[in-house]
């Protein structure tokens, strides 16, 4: 039996999973229209390759991947493109994004599908196929799968982890997928295993899903694979990638470290493995997914849903109660209320919860923090949320970073246990976005400054070059004159040696003068240039700096020097500091 590890903190909210996992996965009927956003995964926004009026077939490419970290988008059914236009995206921002709206023709007619022969295909072509099939992480973040299938250079791939934990309350789509389609998940995992060549493959499933554990174990045995199916203790957020890695391997990947491959471990959701297999073995792109419909509804259940299905139309299948006042996408811990009910299901839509005040009562008024530390005892990244809250509230963002705010995964455990009902996660999101905005501003300002400095430098250089040219021309002119004079003097040679001497003498003198003038001009220009540079480097208004501002300046200088923008500003700053 595998030795399991523990992660700090976590919570045990009521799971609410039995409501929706009692029935098999149903198939949602064809909706009246489909709104397929082009931007459904992390990375570049796919470029539309269809236009209004085009006839499309089921599975036909409608958005082409833009760059390596990007994945293609396909028509979920056959029909006609109504428009390629901006529509509200299922995102907390409520912003519009480019969508392809399709009117289904009802025939649901597939495009020609071409499976991949894995035996004869190079890994690079498999990656291209996965990208072309729109295979992205279906667990939540939507990171293009092919981007995670290459091991980090110099780090051996120890473990491939398949995430079937599904720790958020209410959500059961992965549970049902594992119960019903375990074999294809296992084959997808085998595909990932072949590409990544890990030492071990671990499939983590929370122990509140015994049916899924049994189905997966049986499928692994049937395929003769040596994958370990591990029931992990049910504790939110055990399904967080870094928490699951910790539980299964003991490794701690810091929240601020983006790629877990740097620690020799890679995590994929079970549904991602499933869609990867469908794409490879059947040539089917990702055009549908399993979505849990639950919450304030009469008939909660999981459905296979076409991407682009409007949420209100879909939710009707579960018969929401009349007091439903919103749709929650995702789980109740990390999900969000969609900006309007017509937004479409996307690849990362794992669950829709009909929201009502009966289910989720309005929050009690926020009280002051009493520093009880309950938040710190549940934080899975072992942060001090009450300290970050204190500084976020005071808009002292530098301090929030000292308390590692960017290690926060926004799991919501702190808000869940806070007796003062402080929306802690909300404060942290605010602080993070402010810090990002400021970083952007700072970067823009620095770039503008660098541009300005370069322009000044160029102007000076041009001026100096001009002066040099002029001086050279003058010198040439003088030398020519002197030569002419010398020639003129040479003609009546012997006549008047005194005159020759007289004319001879100033001629070299004037040539030397011109030379000197040219040199002087060059030196002058160089000095001016140096002065301008000094002035440009000399920071202004730095008499009454606060220590943190000084530190910030020092950091900027260090960065600038590292980037080779500044020449010798360090002495200047030190001088002013000494004052």
């Amino acid at each position: 039996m595998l030795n399991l590890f523990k992660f700090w903190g976590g919570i045990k909210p009521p799971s609410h999973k039995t409501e929706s996992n009692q029935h098999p996965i149903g198939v949602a009927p064809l909706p009246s229209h489909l709104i397929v956003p082009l931007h459904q995964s992390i990375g570049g926004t796919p470029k539309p390759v269809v236009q209004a009026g085009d006839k499309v077939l089921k599975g036909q490419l409608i958005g082409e991947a833009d760059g390596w970290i990007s994945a293609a988008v396909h028509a979920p059914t056959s029909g006609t493109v109504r428009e390629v236009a901006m529509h509200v995206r299922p995102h907390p921002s409520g912003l519009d994004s480019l969508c392809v709206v399709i009117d289904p023709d009802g025939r649901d007619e597939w495009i020609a599908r071409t499976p991949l022969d894995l035996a004869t295909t190079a890994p690079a072509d498999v990656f291209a196929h996965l990208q072309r099939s729109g295979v992205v992480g279906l667990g939540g973040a939507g990171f293009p799968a092919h981007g995670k299938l290459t091991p980090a250079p110099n780090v051996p791939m120890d473990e491939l982890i398949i995430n079937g934990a599904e720790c958020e309350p209410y959500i059961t789509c992965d549970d049902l997928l594992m119960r019903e389609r375990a074999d294809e998940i296992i084959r997808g995992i085998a595909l990932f295993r072949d590409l990544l060549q890990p030492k071990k493959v671990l499939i983590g499933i929370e122990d509140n899903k015994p049916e899924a554990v049994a189905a997966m174990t049986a499928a692994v045995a049937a395929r003769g694979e040596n994958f370990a199916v591990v029931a992990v203790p049910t504790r939110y957020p055990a399904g967080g990638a870094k928490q699951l890695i910790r539980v299964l391997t003991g490794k701690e990947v810091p929240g601020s470290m983006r790629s877990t491959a740097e620690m020799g471990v890679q995590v994929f959701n079970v549904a991602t493995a499933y869609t990867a297999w469908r794409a490879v073995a059947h040539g089917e792109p990702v055009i549908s997914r399993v979505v849990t419909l639950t919450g304030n509804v009469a008939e909660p259940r999981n459905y296979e849903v076409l991407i682009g299905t409007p949420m209100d139309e879909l939710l009707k299948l579960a018969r929401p109660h009349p007091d439903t006042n919103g749709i929650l996408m995702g789980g109740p811990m990390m999900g969000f209320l969609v900006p309007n009910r017509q937004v479409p299901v996307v690849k990362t839509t794992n669950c829709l919860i009909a929201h009502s005040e009966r289910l989720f009562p309005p929050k009690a008024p926020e009280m002051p923090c009493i520093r009880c530390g309950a938040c710190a005892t549940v934080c899975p990244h072992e942060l001090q949320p009450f300290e970050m809250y204190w500084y976020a509230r005071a808009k002292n963002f530098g301090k929030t970073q000292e308390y590692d705010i960017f290690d926060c995964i926004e799991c919501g455990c702190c808000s869940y246990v806070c007796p003062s009902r402080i929306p802690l996660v909300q404060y942290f999101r605010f602080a993070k976005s402010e810090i990002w905005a400021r970083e952007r501003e700072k970067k823009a300002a620095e770039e503008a400054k660098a541009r300005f400095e370069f322009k000044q430098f160029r102007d000076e250089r041009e001026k100096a070059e001009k002066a040099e040219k002029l001086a050279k021309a003058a010198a040439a002119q003088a030398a020519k004159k002197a030569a002419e004079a010398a020639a003129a003097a040479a003609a009546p040679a012997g006549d008047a040696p005194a005159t020759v001497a007289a004319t001879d003498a100033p001629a070299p003198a004037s040539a030397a003068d011109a030379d000197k003038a040219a040199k002087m001009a060059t030196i002058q220009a160089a000095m001016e240039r140096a002065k301008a540079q000094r002035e440009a480097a000399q920071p202004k208004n730095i008499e009454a700096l606060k220590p943190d501002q000084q530190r910030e300046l020092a950091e900027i200088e260090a960065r600038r020097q590292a980037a080779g923008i500044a020449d010798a500003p360090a002495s200047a700053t030190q001088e002013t500091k000494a004052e």
Partner: protein
Amino acid sequence: MIFAPSPFLLKDVSVSQVMTQVCVALIPGIAAYAWLVGPAILVQLVIATFAALFAEAAMLKLRGKPLALFLSDGSAIVTAWLIALTFPPLAPWWMVFTGTIFAIVFAKHLYGGLGQNPFNPAMVAFAVCIVSFPALMSQWPAVGLELRLVDQIDIIFGLAPRVDALTSATPLDAMKTALRMGDGNFDIAQLLANQDIYGNFAGRGWEWVAAGYLIGGLWLWHRRVISWQVPVAFIGSLTLISGALWLYNPAAFANPIFHLFSGGTLLGAFFIATDPVSGCTTPRGKLIFGAGAGLLAYIIRVFGGFPDGVAFAVLLMNLSAPVIDLLTQPAIFGMKGKK
């Protein structure tokens, strides 16, 4: 459509629940106290509660804060109860009243109210009163003194003369005074044999009040309202130092059990030093805070001029808490041994 941020699921907890649990945990101690000295303590609890709510309401009004929300959080009541339990039970009403008002107005609201006070308000009240009214704060009823409720109320409200005979020192204070007066002629064993003052393992009767606080404190820990670090470190350091000195000279230093069940040790360890607002927040910080408070409490009560040292010990540690927290920040997930 509505707007609300995640998480949508919240645990059923609130500040008033936390405070209510603290009050409930005090009940065993209060019951033993009432059994020991009679209903006077209940009268003091009522006076303190009234004063605290009055001061709280007045300050909330002045500061323009919602009255109902903050009055119902229960924090003022906890402060009031701790004041009543640390003051002599037959203290004049105005002393408890003034102390409580001072705690709420100066130690709490002038610093910004709930969650903002750097010092434990109840201990500030105790310190202010023991410095201002040292004699009255040192008069404790002799154990075994049978007084009717009416008589006790008369004494508290100054309707009856405060006969000196009615009051004595605490067992802790009595021992210290006796040892000093005796100039080495007394020995602890002899003193403890005096059954008028001393009971089975500490002050007669008072040991059971302390036991009541212990039970309540353990329950609070069981409910995870308090964490184990502060009480364990507090009791541990006090046991260590008192044990060391006792082993060194058992004639001049009382044994650790006596110290644990005397004065404010257990009330302090479980209910006062565990105040989250004015204490340390990091796990290691809590250990340092508790250990420091226990050590200082012992030093002040044995070598200092005051009958007990818990209040000053806690206040001194309150002063140090921010620095301790800063220096004991735990390593975060994935960064252990790296920073």
